[in-house]
């Protein structure tokens, strides 16, 4: 009995030690911050595009006679802990607030004063989202998540104006950016959050009959308001619709497991690329698809991305 108990306690101690080692290795192994810098640029471009579109309808959504009045938005959020600088902006300063926001988002994109501009960008993203709850969708959720993590991590340490200025201060000494624990930590936050998004997206579909009987993809692709390519030819191939529905479900549910199997990771990322491009092409949800792919980019090998960036940005083309 004592021997058995001893074995159990040794097993538990080994398990605790292995878990601690695994946890530390997962979160605190330093990596090259170039991939994080690349994700910052891609997220920044998406932010600039998204907010440029808001600029086309600024008066309709953020002005005094907007679709949802400021009062109604406040009433809607009365039991929530939300904030938006738009609550403080008088009608005559709407364009000024917008121009300032775009300027800060541009600084963030190019990586200028990134420590500050990333935090301000997060405040801008949240403020815009909390002013227009009537027009939000998946794009806003994912871009908000990415901006949050980029504001937490050292997203301006590489592939940025900040890093270029720092190298100039060192008299043009182009030393490689040192590996960073914080960069890895940030990439891991994005990794885990992406896994949760796919898992929850899949699990929530399991509550619907249409995802079980395979009709769901027809309800999506046959929806006139979302259709950007005529897919009604699929009505003559119902088995294809059923397979597409079940494949989508399998992909969403299995992403969070298969992405961690090294040999399968390229395959899972390729699958994500194909499916998101198909969502963009068939349903017109290009911005959502692209921002999900930016999130998926956090699973790329940081060292490989760093080498590629060095080769592309080297004055002699990496020669």
């Amino acid at each position, binding site marked *: 009995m004592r021997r058995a108990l001893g074995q159990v306690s040794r097993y538990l101690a080994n398990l605790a030690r292995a878990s601690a080692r695994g946890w530390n290795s997962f979160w605190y*192994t330093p990596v090259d911050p170039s991939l994080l810098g690349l994700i910052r640029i891609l997220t920044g471009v998406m932010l600039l595009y998204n907010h440029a*579109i808001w600029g086309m309808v600024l008066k309709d959504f953020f002005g005094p006679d907007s679709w949802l009045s400021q009062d109604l938005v406040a009433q809607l959020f009365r039991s929530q802990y939300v904030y938006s600088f738009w609550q403080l902006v008088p009608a005559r300063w709407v364009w000024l607030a917008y121009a300032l926001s775009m300027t800060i988002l541009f600084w963030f994109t190019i990586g200028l004063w990134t420590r500050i501009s990333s935090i301000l960008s997060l405040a801008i993203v949240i403020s815009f989202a909390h002013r227009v709850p009537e027009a939000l*969708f998946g794009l806003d959720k994912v871009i908000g998540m990415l901006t949050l993590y980029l504001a*937490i991590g050292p997203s301006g340490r590489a592939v940025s104006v900040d890093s270029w200025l720092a190298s100039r201060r060192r008299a043009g000494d182009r030393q490689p950016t040192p590996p960073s624990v914080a960069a890895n930590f940030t990439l891991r936050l994005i990794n885990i959050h992406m896994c949760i998004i796919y898992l929850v997206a899949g699990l929530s579909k399991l509550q619907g009959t*249409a995802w079980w009987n395979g009709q*769901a993809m*027809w309800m999506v692709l046959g929806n006139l308001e979302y259709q950007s390519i005529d897919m*009604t030819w699929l009505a003559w191939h119902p088995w294809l619709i059923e397979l597409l529905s079940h494949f989508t479900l399998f992909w969403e549910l299995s992403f969070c497991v298969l992405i961690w199997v090294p040999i399968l990771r390229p395959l899972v990322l390729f699958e994500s690329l194909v499916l998101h491009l198909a969502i963009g092409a068939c349903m017109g949800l290009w911005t959502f698809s692209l921002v999900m792919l930016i999130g998926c980019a956090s699973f790329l090998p940081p060292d490989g991305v760093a080498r590629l960036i060095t080769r592309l940005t080297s004055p002699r083309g990496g020669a």
Partner: protein
Amino acid sequence: MNPAGSEAPPQHSPQSAGAGPNLRVRLLRWCINLWVVLHFSAILAAAGIIGPTPGYVVAAWDLFHPYLDALFLNHGYAFFAPEPSPSMLMDFAATRPDGSLVQGRIPDPRVRPGLLYQRTLLLTEHIGVLPDEFREDWYRSYARHLCRKYGASKVHLTLLTHFPMPMEMVRNGGKLDSPRSYRKLDLGEYACDEP
């Protein structure tokens, strides 16, 4: 944020990452580890609060939702779930003081670029999931916006639910925009001089 010293010591390896950090770094790591666990518990609570919800998820949501609200993380990520729903559209007829009429549909399929079209589609899509207590104020706010936009004295609103055409009907020659696929709900007339 700098999780436990952001710069790597020379020739760092995963094993050495946890080998001998000093007390300050260890303490910082424990705080960060705790935050990671709480943060992702909160994300899962936000996802779990949608749909059939056990009591412990409700308790977790009660605890975390100020944090989630403030960081704009209070999302369910339930895309086209539990099932893809029919689209919601809105027809409007704005009457100007001179009697002229401006009619339109939200969303207008001619709107470009695509993201702007998506935003206007969402204006009506959200009506489908709106709590009843806000429904009337929501319509009134849209009506007021249309009044100002078109300089109208009154606006008539009609809500349309557009159901997807079953595959069998498409095979038999049915079109996705067939009038039979729409269900109308007359929301009535809104005077533009209402407070």
